[in-house]
């Protein structure tokens, strides 16, 4: 009997909790648009996905940290350098937290930043093209989980190391952790005009595991708050050994002070190695640069730069409310949630109301900085966002629910089960000064039976709530790609009007662009062959190439001559140990092909571009090494071999491209 009752209490059946007009609220009729864009991190896919809210429809996967054969990102010669790191070419990463650029504490819809957790990197996506345009490696850290949290005018992206490591790296016993391991907190500046990232400075901190962060806003602007765990400084079986103390420490950083110390020259310059990879939109080429110095600030040399305050066991989120006054520390293993008051913490600092220190960094008295405690809200609080009406919403991983509570009174107002075990949640503008408290999206870590089964591996599950009323209302389940850790949601009209339709071909400055079909040609330089090819409905020019030889390095520089919306052309070569190219209108992309055997190879356009798409194809004849077949090419003509004409055109093309 008891078992039967338990079974009937299983809350799998959400039909009981979805009410009324939920279907109507998420239905976007054909031809109409969603109200919001949601940008979800792709977790272990290394990418970012774009969804519409409230419909939950996926619009795009933006390749960021992982090679993407679907469009040649990381395979084409232009985009390969995006993956350069001090470890060499790293073709994959684990993307975690999305941060949209801000002005005056509100989203401005210009850029998206996301961190690579595994090989520490921060990427920038341009929201006019929805393409990754920049990746900056962060040196001397390991596991860049605590990133890339943005300040309210996009001054900095703040990040902290997840794993403390020896700095500089050296061959030491792991058990010498306390003696040799340090954690860096990194400040990357963002150029206000171009968005270009630069590592401004790093702060050398005790060897903890930094987890999540937020920056202050309004009154607390100029400060950063980073949670950490493992103040025990364990280096093995962390799940037990890093969970022994009742409280861990939250780092509170005055970055305006850091700027003062930098200006006063109170920093050390360390030689290291890290890469900065920047995409140039006009040429479409990524330029990779190795950087070798970084500025290190030591809290001991720069007093008032860093403070700690205790937080309940193993905190995850450190979330600042829209007023900038309250700060929520979510202790994953704690029964209660601590809410801090920024003004009280400032007062405690002023009155030196400290409770000891760690490595010379003062620890603010817990009680002195506390606004209050939310009593028994649930189990395993992870992350909190706000609706702009004085309410906070926190995910509870263990009790699998979202809880709504009042920040001022700490009173619990509503709770709603979530299927299953949410990690982060997001509200449009939920981390900004002006949230739009209409929807809430919970990103769940466990999927199980939410969708038709697809074997052992399945997509994750997200759930959308209407939070405009007093009670949260569940609207929709939808599957999400890989494991979104965090997402941000922005009003569509902030992004949609700026979305580019294609690249103007007259602005193409690619050194191997082919401006005009009559100028397509093939050039040989030793065993390197350059094919200057154009793509246009519905033919590639040239489409017959002869005189290639086994062992050649053949570069297909394909220029898409179209100037119309949604008219990409693909290029695929049989047997190429590479991906395809997907070339946007006005763009030039290069595929390297190293033919391995004597054969006539077929190539074709992969993107169904017109009714005669199937006819958009060609042949490349590969002869034996040392054969005397001359280099020839053409399109519906006797094959040409005038190198001189080709060169003359090339000069002209360069002049035109420069205009």
């Amino acid at each position, binding site marked *: 009997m008891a078992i039967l009752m338990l079974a009937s209490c299983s809350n799998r059946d959400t039909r009981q909790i979805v009410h009324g007009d939920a279907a109507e609220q998420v239905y976007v009729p054909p031809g109409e648009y969603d109200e919001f864009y949601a940008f979800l991190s792709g977790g272990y896919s290394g990418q970012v996905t774009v969804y519409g809210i409230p419909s939950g429809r996926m619009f795009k996967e933006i390749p960021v940290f992982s090679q993407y054969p679907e469009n040649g990102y990381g395979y084409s010669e232009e985009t390969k350098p995006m993956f350069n790191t001090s470890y060499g070419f790293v073709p994959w990463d684990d993307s975690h937290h999305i941060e949209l650029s801000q002005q005056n504490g509100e989203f401005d819809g210009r850029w998206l930043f996301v961190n690579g957790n595994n090989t520490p990197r921060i990427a920038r996506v341009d929201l006019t093209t929805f393409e990754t345009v920049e990746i900056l490696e962060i040196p001397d850290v390991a596991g860049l989980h605590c990133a890339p949290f943005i300040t309210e005018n996009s001054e900095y992206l703040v990040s902290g190391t997840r794993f403390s490591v020896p700095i500089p790296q050296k061959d030491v016993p792991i058990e010498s952790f306390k003696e040799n391991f340090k954690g860096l907190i990194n400040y990357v500046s963002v150029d206000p005009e171009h968005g270009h990232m630069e590592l401004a400075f790093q702060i050398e901190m005790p060897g903890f595991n930094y987890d999540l962060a937020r920056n202050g806003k309004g009154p607390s602007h100029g400060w950063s708050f980073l949670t950490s765990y493992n103040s025990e400084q364990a280096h093995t079986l962390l799940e037990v050994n890093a969970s022994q103390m009742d409280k861990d420490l939250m780092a509170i950083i005055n970055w305006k002070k850091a700027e003062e110390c930098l200006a006063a020259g109170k920093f050390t310059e360390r030689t290291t190695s890290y890469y900065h990879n920047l995409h140039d939109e006009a040429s479409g080429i990524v330029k990779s640069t190795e950087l070798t110095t970084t500025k290190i600030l030591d809290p001991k040399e720069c007093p008032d730069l860093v403070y700690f305050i205790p937080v309940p066991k193993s905190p995850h989120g450190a979330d600042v409310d829209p007023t900038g006054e309250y700060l929520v520390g979510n202790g994953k293993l704690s029964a209660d949630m601590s809410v801090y008051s920024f003004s009280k913490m400032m007062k405690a600092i002023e009155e030196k109301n400290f409770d000891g220190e760690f490595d010379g960094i003062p620890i603010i008295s817990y009680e002195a900085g506390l606004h209050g405690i939310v009593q028994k809200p649930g189990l395993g609080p992870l992350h909190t966002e706000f609706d702009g009406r004085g309410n906070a919403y926190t995910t509870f991983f263990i009790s699998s629910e979202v809880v709504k509570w009042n920040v001022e009174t700490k009173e619990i107002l509503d709770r709603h089960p979530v299927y299953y075990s949410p990690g982060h949640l997001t509200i449009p503008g939920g981390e900004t000064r002006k949230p739009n408290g209409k929807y809430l999206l919970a990103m769940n870590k466990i999927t199980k039976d939410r969708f038709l089964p697809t074997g052992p591996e399945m997509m994750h599950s997200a759930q959308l709530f209407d939070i405009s009323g007093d009670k949260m209302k569940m609207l929709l389940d939808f599957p999400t790609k890989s494991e979104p850790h965090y997402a941000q949601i922005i009003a569509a009209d902030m992004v949609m009007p700026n979305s580019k339709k294609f690249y103007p071909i007259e602005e193409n400055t690619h050194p191997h662009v082919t401006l005009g079909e009559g100028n397509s040609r093939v050039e040989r330089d030793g065993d390197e062959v350059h094919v200057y090819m154009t793509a246009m409905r519905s033919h590639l020019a040239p489409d017959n190439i002869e005189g290639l030889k086994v062992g050649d390095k053949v570069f297909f520089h394909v220029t898409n001559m179209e100037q119309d919306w949604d008219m990409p052309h693909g290029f695929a070569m049989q047997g190429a140990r590479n991906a395809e190219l997907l070339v946007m209108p006005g763009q030039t992309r290069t595929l390297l092909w190293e033919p391995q055997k004597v054969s006539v190879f077929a190539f074709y356009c992969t993107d169904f571009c*017109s009714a005669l798409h199937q006819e958009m194809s060609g042949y490349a004849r590969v002869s034996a090494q040392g054969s005397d077949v001359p280099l020839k090419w053409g399109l519906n003509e006797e094959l040409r071999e005038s190198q001189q004409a080709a060169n003359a055109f090339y000069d002209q093309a360069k002049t035109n491209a420069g205009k």
Partner: protein
Amino acid sequence: MRILPSSRILMILALLSLGAVFFFPLWQILLDAAQFPGGLQLHIWVNKISGTDKYILQNINILNHYIGMKSIHPDSIPELKYFPFIIYGLLALGLVVVVIDKAWAYLSWSVLISLLGILGIYDFYLWLYDYGHNLDPTAPIKIEGMTYQPPLFGAKDLLNFYVQSYPHWGAAFLGLAVIIAFLAYLKKIHKPKIDQLEPADLVTKATGQSKQKKVNNILIQVIAGLLLVGCGINPEPIVFGKDHCVYCKMSIADPKYGAELVTAKGKVFKFDALECMVPYMQQQDKSDYAYVLGIAYDDPGILHPVGSMHFIIAEKYNSPMGANLAGFKNVQLIANNPNLFDWESLKSHLSSRISQQQP
């Protein structure tokens, strides 16, 4: 009329209006297809071709090459080079006219510009014809008997595109220049008489007016007619088997019978027979129709103004609604018949029949 300024000022206004052709396209062609949200717009100017964006010609040329149409290259269209000079010439001549300030000068100028305008439209039609008919025999897509000439005026389905072609502001300003110059002429020759006319005379139809006003009113009607054309008030051909009679709701099937009304606002009403149109007109109790048209039995499918037609009632004509009524454009064919009517007498004949039936 008496509020009109002097001929000279009118002529300067006409020149300003003509100058506007450099700031607005003359004609626009809109191509609509499912894959092109918002459609593709082509604007034809006196000196260039533009459109939705600066890539419009490339995109239209890409589409056209599938069906073998020639690429449109503005550089290879000489008219775009010399038309501006014709406009400059007309502007210069116009200034001379202002200086001379003679009736014949105003008239000559407006006749000249009208003629040139008509020639220009004819030239445009020839280009459209050439693009639409002069097809590359090796085109990837060939459809037996299909040509792709866009309409000069109106709409047409061309494969997956719905093509609409209409004058744009430039043409309207050009038309306005003709009208204003013509008004300048009228002002010059009929100054005292025209001043006596009330503005309302421009609108009301000339029925039973005094003799001395007759000449003026004919001229005014010509202007009003030009205005009407400019506003796109035109009869529409009847599509047999598809259109329905507004009066009896039956489909219009027999091309030997039919009629059409176009109101002063440009609304078109179609009828399967004359005997449907007459009672309809009676019900509406309106007289300001732009066109009252009938199908001629001896010219099937073609609409003629009823005033120019003759009508016959005889058993051999099985008109759709049983009135045995047919219209003829050539009166010789029915000359010796006793039941022969002109439009006015037909109307009274039919309405007396209707009133007999109604009680």
